[in-house]
């Protein structure tokens, strides 16, 4: 085992979230394709997404992955193209994490709230 620091964790999270999002993209294409079978089929499937708590958690995780991957992606691009970017890589990692968590708060309330009986709408 190697005890890497922020840079290594940012990279691990980036990879894992990237792979996760790609896999979801495949699934998402399939479920969207179901739309061709008409409203009954499609609505039946989307209901599963909405009603099953586990799918709400998965969606929450997906959004977390998309958010982290996006913010850390910005961090990487800044490092790549701004000559001084590397000096702030640790700070930007915490920034990406912070923004992700921040954006996840309302998302969590909206997505997971109903499961716990809050923010019903």
């Amino acid at each position, binding site marked *: 085992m190697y005890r890497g620091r922020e840079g290594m964790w940012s*990279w691990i999270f980036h990879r894992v979230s990237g792979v996760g999002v790609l896999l979801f993209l495949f699934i998402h294409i399939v479920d969207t394709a179901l739309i061709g079978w008409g409203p009954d089929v499609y609505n039946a499937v989307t209901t599963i997404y909405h009603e099953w708590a586990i799918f709400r958690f998965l969606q929450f995780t997906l959004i977390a992955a998309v958010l982290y991957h996006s913010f850390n992606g910005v961090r990487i691009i800044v490092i790549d193209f701004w000559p001084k970017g*590397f000096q702030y890589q640790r700070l930007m990692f915490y920034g990406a994490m912070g923004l992700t968590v921040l954006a996840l708060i309302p998302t969590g309330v909206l997505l997971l709230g109903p499961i716990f009986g809050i923010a019903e709408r």
Partner: protein
Amino acid sequence: MQVTCKIRRYNPTVDEKPYFSVYRAEVEPTDRVLDVLNTIKWYEDGTLTYRRSCAHGVCGSDAMRINGRNRLACKVLVRDVGNRMTIEPMMGFKVLRDLVVDMEPFFEKYKAVKPYLINDEPAPVTERLQSPEDRAKYDDTTKCILCAACTTSCPPFWSNPDFVGPAALVNAHRFIFDSRDQRGADRAAIISDRDGVWRCRTVFNCTDACPRGIQVTNAMEEVKRKLLYDRA
């Protein structure tokens, strides 16, 4: 103070697989980890094997994993690692014995990037001129002591030993940005390959591991940018 030192041991000619030996040694807090190893080797277990030479961080012999991170054993003090330490060989190279790894592939990669000045014009009688500004462009990467701490801390390198690795790229940078260097076709071919600089994933382990404080990741980023901006 008494320290407990857990060391990963392996002699491929006799051991089936690596194992850990635990030693206790009486040392000063201001001693180097290398002094701990020496104390163990000289007064307790002569079979403990590691490389070392200058003992003050300029020769690059004693890079190893100390408490999970690549360090030079002669540049870490006992008081900075505490009284329990785990010492293992660097990752990604074959272990020859205990903490000694096979450095041949490392130097092969170094040689592959043509780490020398290429300038076919006849040299002047005195020096070739270079402005202090041009000299400053590659100052950081001239500090490299080829200890391999960066390359063996690099996750892409662990999984794919074909990657030329940060150390070789640092030395490529040193010549790419030297205004006196004229032709680096072979160098460019290697560094712009799939197993070249593009395999760097900006993990920054290399930068954290460098005992000379070289901004290794940034050096590779500068190489990437140069390849991109100069493409025409």
